[in-house]
């Protein structure tokens, strides 16, 4: 078992810091489009702070070793990838099919992704029903009671 408190080189943290130096440079480049000096002075100061902090983190990780060893990730990666894809699909399909249909499908997919215990007939009936109830309740709460428009779907317009 790995020791969680021993210092290490914190490779992911170092990579993240390098990525954000890149992001900082990109943001700096965007400030050239700002014509008014008042618009870019503050953003540039923040970008410099970001880059300096990233350099400090990289320096600390490389020279002294930084952070703590991170526990290896439990659980399967496909579940997390599945969750992200399901959410992406929701954002893509919601304007077309509307909140209720896409919400119910999303809830169903997410139940499958997050289900760990063995499926029984009772659960197979109860969980989708709970999902449908929750989605419809949210729709009623937001769209009907609070008058917050939720997408009805361009397919049904």
């Amino acid at each position, binding site marked *: 078992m790995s020791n969680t408190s021993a210092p290490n080189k914190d490779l992911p943290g170092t990579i993240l810091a390098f990525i954000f130096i890149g992001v900082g440079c990109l943001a700096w480049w965007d400030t050239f489009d700002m014509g008014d000096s008042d*618009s870019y002075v503050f*953003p540039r100061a923040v970008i410099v702070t970001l880059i300096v902090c990233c350099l400090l983190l990289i320096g600390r990780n490389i020279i002294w070793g930084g952070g703590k060893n991170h526990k290896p990730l439990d659980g399967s990666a496909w579940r*997390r990838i599945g969750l992200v894809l399901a959410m*992406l699909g929701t954002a893509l399909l919601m*304007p077309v099919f509307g909140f209720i249909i896409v919400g119910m499908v999303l809830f169903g997919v997410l*139940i499958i992704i997050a289900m760990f215990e063995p499926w029984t007939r009772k659960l197979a009936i109860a969980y989708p029903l709970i999902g449908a109830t929750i989605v419809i309740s949210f729709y009623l709460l937001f769209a009907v009671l609070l008058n917050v428009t939720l997408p009805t779907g361009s397919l049904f317009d």
Partner: protein
Amino acid sequence: MENPISYFFMSWSDPYLLLMTAAGTFAGVYVGAIPGLSVTMAVSILISFTFSWDTNEALALMVGVYMGGVYGGSRTAILLNIPCAPSAIATAIDGYPLAKRGEAGTAIGVATVMSFIGGLVGILVLAVAAPLVSEFALMFAPRDYLLLAVIGILLVGSLSGESLAKGVFAGALGVIIGMVGLDPLTAEGRFTFDSITMMGGIHYVTAMIGFFGVAEALAQLHHLETPAIKQKLERITPKWSVVKRYIPLSIRTSFIGVFIGALPGTGGDIAALMAYDHAKRSVKDPSRKFGEGAMEGLVAPESANNAAVGGAYIPMLTLGIPGDAVTAVFIGALYIHGLNPGPMLMIETPHLFWFTVGALMLANVFMLIFGLTGVRLFIKLVECPRAILVPLILILSVVGTYAIQNNVVDVYWMLGFGIFGYFLKIYGYQVGPVILGVILGPLMDVSYRRAIISTRESFGDFMLEMVTNPISALLSAALVFLVVSQTPMYKRWTNKRRSV
């Protein structure tokens, strides 16, 4: 003229006003607990309903929503680690670990009672010392707001993180995210990369739901094999001995809350963080380590953010300057009802001041009642199987994000922030400073520019004023101390002193 006491008790004695305040507080508690539904949004919607109402009825309802809403954010922060309002970010630091230990009932009970005490202190200061506090709050210059915002971001980084550099990095990133969109002073596009979609900017609630909600759902997938934690629900209302133990801390942090709340443009978020910092520094023997479910870490922010409600009313009622976004909407409501908010409000319509104070007090009592009831049902949320909990968090996140601007682009942003927040979380970075950066970034930006304009664009004068003006010098010293206290050298020195 009738005496102020009769105006104070008007909402208590009139059954209709009593009902309005109760309904508003009840709605506020539950609206505040739903991601995407902010108190500002709820009060704004209510204004349109109250056009034709009597001013007192409208005020009673809105005051209730405000008081209940500020408290409501703590519930999802404790139960799901989703702070529905910026003022609940600090609550989640120790509240969620308590729920993970099966103590959500106790946590909500203590949070409710301490919110009540905070609210009470805020209202008392409003009633007794409003003009005095207001005068002092107006002495704060733009550079002081800049310093306050920087302290706020650094506080959350240093409070919960292992490294100050990581906290500053996360805060700076948040400020950059908060600056995406049109420049508030020149309307020039910043970090938009010529994309029309990005010109609208990124709403902080989108970032908050992504970083907390989606990231939490992704993190939950790591623990599918562990059963949901059974919550201990023997007692929701905390014992008097427990309340008595935390009252001194609650009162101290409430005063922090009132004062920060009284500063125009700030609010419960900075107040709660400063209170949390105060608790961490002043409590020598916490119930548990801070960040791992210390009750003191819950008491301080909850007292402060509700005390900030009374504070926010101080500049509004005495000077017509909104203390925060909600009181800005209130000012609009007063105009609609034919009143003229400003320095003359208290002279021309003193009854309005005392009526508001009375309604706030009543709403605070209702908040205590509604806060301590219905908890058992709410707590079932954390006990439900993960196959239901994860979809529930994500559906709530989608609806909440979409509801902010009725724009599906926000859902993409939320997802992006969620994935990014998940990686930050697993690699030991704090998401709190990112959110604080998104929220306080615009305040920092505008304050810096106002400050530099006030010194005729002279950076030297700007820096000089930072150390010569008493308030700025005090805040600068606090900032320097905050940074120095996070350096390894200072930590080694304090450890050595403690061991001696």
